[in-house]
């Protein structure tokens, strides 16, 4: 069983939701930098599976949807798609979470075979106008 590790690289508590789980995982903020001390990056592991996308598991077959929420750093959430090449089968992967960016690597530090896209709101469809039927002011 291989693993996708998500490291929190910001000094803020975050949640990581992999493939639309109802209860995302919480990761504490990274440690403070200090002279002659290593910086500690908290992480959460998710299993990598060779089948289709599942909640809380990273798929080698399908696109994976990742939602990162920040406790205080930003008011919105970052949403990413991750697509993995089948050649990564048998390898554990390492993802580094920043504000507005996500970096993926294999154990050697290479990003080959890991495609990451970020989602932005591109369209809105009004479902309910909030305006009265008589056209009066809402």
């Amino acid at each position, binding site marked *: 069983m291989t693993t996708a590790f998500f490291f929190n690289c910001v000094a803020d*508590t*975050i*949640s990581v*939701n992999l493939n*639309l*789980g*109802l*209860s*995302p995982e*919480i990761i504490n903020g990274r440690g403070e930098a200090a002279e002659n001390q290593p910086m500690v990056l908290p992480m959460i592991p998710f299993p990598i599976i060779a089948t289709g996308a599942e*909640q809380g598991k990273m798929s080698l077959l399908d696109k994976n*949807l990742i*939602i990162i*929420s*920040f*406790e205080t750093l930003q*008011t*919105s*959430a970052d*949403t*990413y*798609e991750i697509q993995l090449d089948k050649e990564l089968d048998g390898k554990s992967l390492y993802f580094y979470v920043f504000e507005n*960016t*996500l*970096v*993926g690597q294999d154990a050697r530090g290479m*990003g080959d075979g*890991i*495609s*990451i*896209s*970020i*989602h*932005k*709101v*591109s*369209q*809105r*469809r*009004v*479902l*309910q*106008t*909030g*305006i*009265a039927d008589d056209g009066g002011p*809402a």
Partner: protein
Amino acid sequence: MSRVFFGNSILSSISVNVNFALQGTVLDARPTPTANTQGGNVYSVSLSMAAFDIGPNLDKGKFGNSGENKVQVIVDDGGANLYGVTITDASLKGQDLFFYVFDNTLVGQNNFGTAQGIKIAQLNTSATALQ
């Protein structure tokens, strides 16, 4: 303190997240309707509801009377939707609000059942390559 309630009208568990809190509130699936004590053909259904405080300004896990509140609904094994909800009528301040979550739609009302002053938009996203 007024509150906003989200009732799960879907036959699956869902989570409701207001303004990108770290975690949403998980609601049980809508149960099968059952006959009430009046008997006959009158049935009732009890919807699980999530409640959030309403304040003057939106915040994580808190609904705001000003600005566009982002409501993210995740359906267990059934996808997700992001909605933008704006209160456009100042007279709704101080009132409890009620939202009914369906598959790919959301309906909002005040305590009397009127939707006036509650604007809802469904927000769609597209992906841009980073790596």
